[in-house]
């Protein structure tokens, strides 16, 4: 069994995230990392691999992004994935979800996969659409937003906690699976894992390897355009009272009453 995990290299949410002059997300000038939500996808892949009885299961991590995005692959390899594939090409810059899903789908087809595993959302774009788009492009079932996963032979069964109901969904491989942060507890790389990762293969591929023309992806080819961005004005400093004398609740209710909330 082969599991391909799509992981994204994203700007650290606790750093000051920024935009470039062309209105794209700054992925170079801001400290980047493996998207925290993709750690759950890597962990789930490792669990499925280690539970596989055939013993020949392998986990390939796939990322698309600038040279630095290799860090996302490295972290996944340290956690225990077997090998990495990095789509890196200047023409990719500024791709929207349509362009990204095209490249990821081509790379998955090139690898061949029984399970394509994704996070529930990227922590920068947070669109939550790439997994569905991948399933659409690959023509395979999607079992997405899984908060619990069971794999039995080629049957995958997941629990999806939706807005109005909890559903149990079942499909056969090959398929696209995405997992939420409720699905597992991602492991920390061990010292042994960090050492072992240094020797694991990472293949760099370009658009040419995927048979995609430069004009089909990137900023110019995107079907959407970010026209402007603006920093949200800081909230004006509020009134802060201490409850030392026991009047906190009183003042709170006065404030709420003045705003007509009570």
């Amino acid at each position, binding site marked *: 069994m082969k599991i391909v995990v799509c992981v994204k290299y994203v700007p650290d*949410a606790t750093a000051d*995230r920024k935009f470039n002059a062309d209105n794209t997300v700054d992925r170079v000038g801001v400290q980047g990392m493996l998207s925290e939500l993709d750690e759950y996808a890597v962990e789930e892949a490792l669990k499925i691999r280690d539970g596989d009885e055939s013993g020949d299961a392998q986990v390939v991590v796939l990322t698309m992004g600038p040279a630095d995005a290799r860090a996302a692959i490295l972290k996944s390899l340290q956690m225990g994935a077997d090998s990495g594939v990095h789509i890196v090409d200047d023409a990719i810059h500024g791709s929207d*979800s*349509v362009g990204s899903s095209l490249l990821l789908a081509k790379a998955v087809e090139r690898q061949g996969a029984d399970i394509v595993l994704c996070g529930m959302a990227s922590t920068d774009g*947070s*669109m*939550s*659409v790439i*997994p*569905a*788009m991948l*399933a*659409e*492009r690959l023509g*395979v*079932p*999607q*079992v*997405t*937003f899984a908060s619990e996963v069971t794999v039995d032979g080629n049957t995958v069964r997941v629990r*999806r*906690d939706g*807005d*109005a*109901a909890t*559903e*149990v*969904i*079942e499909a*056969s491989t090959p*398929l696209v699976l995405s997992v939420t*942060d409720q699905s597992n507890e991602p492991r920390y790389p061990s010292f042994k894992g960090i050492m072992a990762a240094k020797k694991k293969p990472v293949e760099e591929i370009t658009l040419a390897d995927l048979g995609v023309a430069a004009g089909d992806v990137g900023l110019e080819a*995107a*079907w*959407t*355009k970010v*026209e*402007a*961005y*603006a*920093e*949200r004005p800081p*909230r004006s400093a*509020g*009134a*802060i*009272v*201490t*409850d*030392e004398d026991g009047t*906190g*609740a009183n003042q*709170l*209710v006065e*404030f*709420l*009453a003045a*705003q007509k*909330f*009570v």
Partner: protein
Amino acid sequence: MSEILVLVDHVDGSVRKTTAELLTLARRLGEPSAVFFGSQIDAARDALKHYGAERVYVLDSADLSDYLVAPKAEALAQLVEAQQPAAVLIPSNAEGKEIAGRLSIKTGSGLITDAVDVQPRDGGVTTTQSVFAGDYTVTASVTKGTPIVTVKPNAVTPEPAEGSAAERTVDVDVSDAAKTARIVERRPREATGRPELNEAAIVVAGGRGTSGDFATVEAFADALGAAVGASRAAVDAGWYPHAYQVGQTGKTVSPQLYVAAGISGAIQHRAGMQTSRTIVAINKDAESPIFELVDFGVVGDLHSVLKSATEQALARKR
């Protein structure tokens, strides 16, 4: 006038507030047509008419309800091909975004998710989104195909307007390829009697500081007619169900008033509540980052403050 398709969000025919919001937005762009998946149109008809739907397309088939997302995307794509609308508006929840993603690929159309505003422009649309945990807003437009936009709750105040709601039953023809992820079990979420978290005008949320006792949080919420929310720390501890989590991996809320009790204000929590109109926090640590966001803050023990505030709020009501 050009037709705007609005995907109806409903639970057993009971139309969600977000649908009224989407229909209100659609009226700015053209003539709204509601797209209704399911068998309970009788329960939904009046609400759709009341918020200005000129047409109602009803698509009802077990194929749509027995499988995840793909059949709905296929049926919607067929409708888009047939009607050639000027735009498609879809609720920004997990299912809505996934339908939108597939529709985008199927129809060769650009997709924008999580809009908090949609305006007409040059025959197309421009959208506003709140990004990076609400630290930035961006404006964007679709440059190819039929604009597909998923819209967040509370993007606009719903304005009633009578539509003619001309109804048409649409034949549903779903391919076998779309019927592969089977829903084998379905457990509806239990009603709490409180407002829906992401629709509520007021949200009172509790965090690790509650130490697991949500009774004071719930009592204060009920005194204000509010929904109850929770931080991930409270959810992970098993104190409150995940469906009520506010934040990056829970719900995003944008109410008139958000009360954070015993919540520190981590970036992932802020991502779900930072755009609330008025923010109030009760926290015993004056240095807690949540106080950087507040309009009004109380440094103190949440249980004693909320208990007394609940009594006073109820007394004012009487």
